[in-house]
């Protein structure tokens, strides 16, 4: 028989305001097994914890029930308290009489009644509790970063700096991500490539970092500290270790009309290409959809001109298996498609472009060598209209856009407008805005400079429609402050498209069993206090895959994620959760149902000898649980048809006892 102590917490007035704590401790004092019952203002305080410790010693308690806040808040605290007094920490049960009781009830009588019932259930459970000892599992001291943009690069560099090996998996032929496509960065206007490419080189030269470019993660198994990951290295038809990146093949390839995705299709590349001059790894890649040799077996020019002999038309996709202790998602973002915004004539006119296309158009390595021109005919634009919030801040029912603010558009539009006025003072620049949002260091000053010093015309209102007329763009918009409808003949219209998570994020989240929100951004473990961790242990978040972010924010989050990874990899062993599955071999019929449902591969079947009633020996096939791998999800306990599978600490008997106590 257990000797149980009950401790009812007031939580100041949080609980005591709605629950008669004295009545609760009095009522629970008469429950079976309870030998001591008390209440106190703050159980989690040092004085409160001492109260528990003293009671454990004085009354020789074998189990305790703390009626307080959610176990997510203070279960660990009270387990430590119990352990300090020599009690097994798994003999502690929490009855949540705050979140599930006082906070949701207004009436003292109902609140008290429910608190007593919850307390009784916890007492009933402790009566059946048994001491548990957690196992340990080793930590693979290697991290995986999925995505090689600025977020992934910074996370990888920081982890590698601490001395741990890191692998970066990037789907594109080069790392660099969206930042490599940008021209200048706000609010300091330093050139994006000038600050990014040294970091890319650092990654390439760091002995602790391996880059899997043109690759993707196809399978993830295991759990924190011990992930088994399969990486598909797509065939690039060029031997990475031999190619010198001289670029001769990319000049000689006869397939000249392949849309260049790095410049967002505004110019062409060859079928064999290096995305940009500072690419890392600087290795050519053959695009199999456009290569004549791969499609029809005719050509072979690149192989002929390659002095290093790096071309390999027979190369196959390669699958690599590797173990990791921690995984960082850094899958980034993309601008949304403008196809549904017919009113802005994006698909009708080449002179209606997105802001990312504008970046390429003003970049010295871009399709126009940095000269701002109208993409339709190459003329210099004299009137430019910027439209903000295209697809951002839409109603939740909207099929066109996103409900959230994309956060970065106000600032990059101010940057574009300012740079245009600086370089081409003869242009008229209009920015149509709903609100200008500039919460960031030196952000509002930057925006005001664009308006005050550079003469950018900021107009509060929205563009209603853009129609191509006689080679120009007729822009019809509202000016809300002047209460006028404006008609502007523009040469170039730039749309600040909303941003959305990369399409690879959702399948990745499924593989990681990491949660996402309705917009497919990864969810953090706590929005304020654990912003770089996923609720799934061992999975961390870096950059815009968690929500829209600018570069400084991305870099700080990337560093924070790295710090969390380093904290994990620095441990030699992880203390496991002792609440794992446990099979009763005498009841197990060897059906394999549990093995099939186990998401962690923790269950195997073994042949075991059993002594039969007639004293003969029989070999039977029974389930065996690997306690280091089991995460205690309980799926097997539900799947088991013979009731042989149980969860330690949450045995069927214990749960039924709780339900009985509640229903009594």
């Amino acid at each position, binding site marked *: 028989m257990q000797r149980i102590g009950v401790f009812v917490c007031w939580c100041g007035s949080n609980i005591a305001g709605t629950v008669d704590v004295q009545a609760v401790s009095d009522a629970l004092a008469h429950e079976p097994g309870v030998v001591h019952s008390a209440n106190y203002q703050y159980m989690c305080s040092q004085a409160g914890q001492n109260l528990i410790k003293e009671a454990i010693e004085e009354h020789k308690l074998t189990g305790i029930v703390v009626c307080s806040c959610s176990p997510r808040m203070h279960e660990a605290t009270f387990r430590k308290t119990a352990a300090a007094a020599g009690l097994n920490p798994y003999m502690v049960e929490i009855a949540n009489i705050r979140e599930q009781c006082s906070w949701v009830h207004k009436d003292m009588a109902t609140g008290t009644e429910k608190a007593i019932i919850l307390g009784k259930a916890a007492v009933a459970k402790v009566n059946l509790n048994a001491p548990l000892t957690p196992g340990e599992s080793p930590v693979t001291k290697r991290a995986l970063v999925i995505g090689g943009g600025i977020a992934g690069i910074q996370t990888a560099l920081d982890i590698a700096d601490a001395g741990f090996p890191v692998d970066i998996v990037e789907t594109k032929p080069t790392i660099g991500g969206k930042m490599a496509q940008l021209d200048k960065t706000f609010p300091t206007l330093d050139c994006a490539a000038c600050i990014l490419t040294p970091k890319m080189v650092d990654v390439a030269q760091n002995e602790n970092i391996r880059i899997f470019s043109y690759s993707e993660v196809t399978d993830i198994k295991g759990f924190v500290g011990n992930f088994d990951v399969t990486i598909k290295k797509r065939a690039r038809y060029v031997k990475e270790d031999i190619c010198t990146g001289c670029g001769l093949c990319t000049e000689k390839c006869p397939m000249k009309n392949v849309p260049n995705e790095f410049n967002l299709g505004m110019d062409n590349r060859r079928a064999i290409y290096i995305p940009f001059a500072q690419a890392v790894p600087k290795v050519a890649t053959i695009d199999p959809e456009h290569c004549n040799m791969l499609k029809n077996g005719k050509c072979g020019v690149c192989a002929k001109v390659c002095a290093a002999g790096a071309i390999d038309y027979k190369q196959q996709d390669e699958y690599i298996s590797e173990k990791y202790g921690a995984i960082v998602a850094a899958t980034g973002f993309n601008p949304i498609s403008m196809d549904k915004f017919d*009113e802005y004539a994006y698909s009708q006119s080449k002179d209606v472009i997105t802001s990312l296309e504008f970046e390429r158009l003003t970049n010295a390595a871009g399709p126009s060598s940095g000269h701002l021109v109208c993409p339709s005919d190459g003329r210099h634009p004299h009137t430019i209209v910027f439209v903000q*919030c295209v697809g951002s*801040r*839409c*109603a939740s*029912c*909207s099929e*066109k*856009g996103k409900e959230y603010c994309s956060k970065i558009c106000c600032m990059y539009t101010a940057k574009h407008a300012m740079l245009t006025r600086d370089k081409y003072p003869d242009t008229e620049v209009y920015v149509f805005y*709903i609100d200008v949002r500039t919460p960031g260091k030196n952000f509002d000053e930057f925006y005001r400079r664009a308006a005050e010093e550079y003469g950018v015309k900021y107009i*509060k*209102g*929205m*563009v*209603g*429609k853009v129609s191509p007329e006689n080679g120009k763009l007729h822009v*019809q*918009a*509202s000016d*809300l402050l002047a*209460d006028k*409808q404006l008609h502007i003949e523009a040469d170039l219209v730039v749309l600040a498209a909303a941003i959305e998570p990369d399409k690879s994020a959702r399948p990745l989240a499924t593989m990681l069993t990491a949660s996402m929100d309705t917009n497919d951004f990864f969810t953090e473990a706590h929005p304020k206090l654990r912003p770089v961790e996923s609720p799934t242990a061992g999975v961390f978040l870096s950059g815009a895959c968690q929500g829209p972010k600018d570069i400084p924010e991305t870099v700080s989050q990337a560093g924070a994620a790295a710090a969390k990874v380093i904290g994990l990899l620095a441990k030699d062993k992880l203390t496991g959760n002792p609440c794992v599955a446990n099979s009763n071999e005498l009841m197990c019929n060897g059906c394999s149902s549990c093995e099939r449902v186990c998401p962690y591969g923790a269950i195997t079947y073994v042949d075991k000898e059993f002594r039969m009633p007639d004293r003969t020996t029989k070999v039977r096939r029974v389930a065996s649980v690997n306690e280091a791998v089991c995460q205690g999800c309980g799926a097997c306990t539900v799947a088991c048809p013979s009731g042989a599978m149980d969860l330690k600490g949450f045995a069927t008997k214990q749960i039924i006892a709780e339900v009985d106590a509640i229903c009594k």
Partner: protein
Amino acid sequence: MKKELEAIQSEVIRRSGVNPKKCMRCGKCSGTCPAYDQMEYHPHQFVYMVESGDIEPLLKSDSLYQCLTCFACVDRCPRGVEPAKLVEAVRLQVVRRQGNNHLKTDSIPALIDEDMPQQALVSALRKYSK
């Protein structure tokens, strides 16, 4: 009078099915509206005035009849506010108060002439025959 205006406001909101509180004042409706220059109160003002209960000027305004019911604002509003439906609901309040001067389906054939776009007739029916 104040009570009557409040009743009209809630009737307009109920009948149109529009929630003017969803408006984020971007002005895209007014940027879109082809009849903007003919209007005394523009679509975004219309939404704001209904929301704030400033209905009286709307009831007297010619703007009610300048709206073409083309629904461009409804299509393009990022917040799904549907300003044209609001205009129509206010118009209906006025017309109802005027008594029985509805356009009858039977009288339409006589009104048809070659230059009149079909959409205008449909709109006229929407405007007057409710």
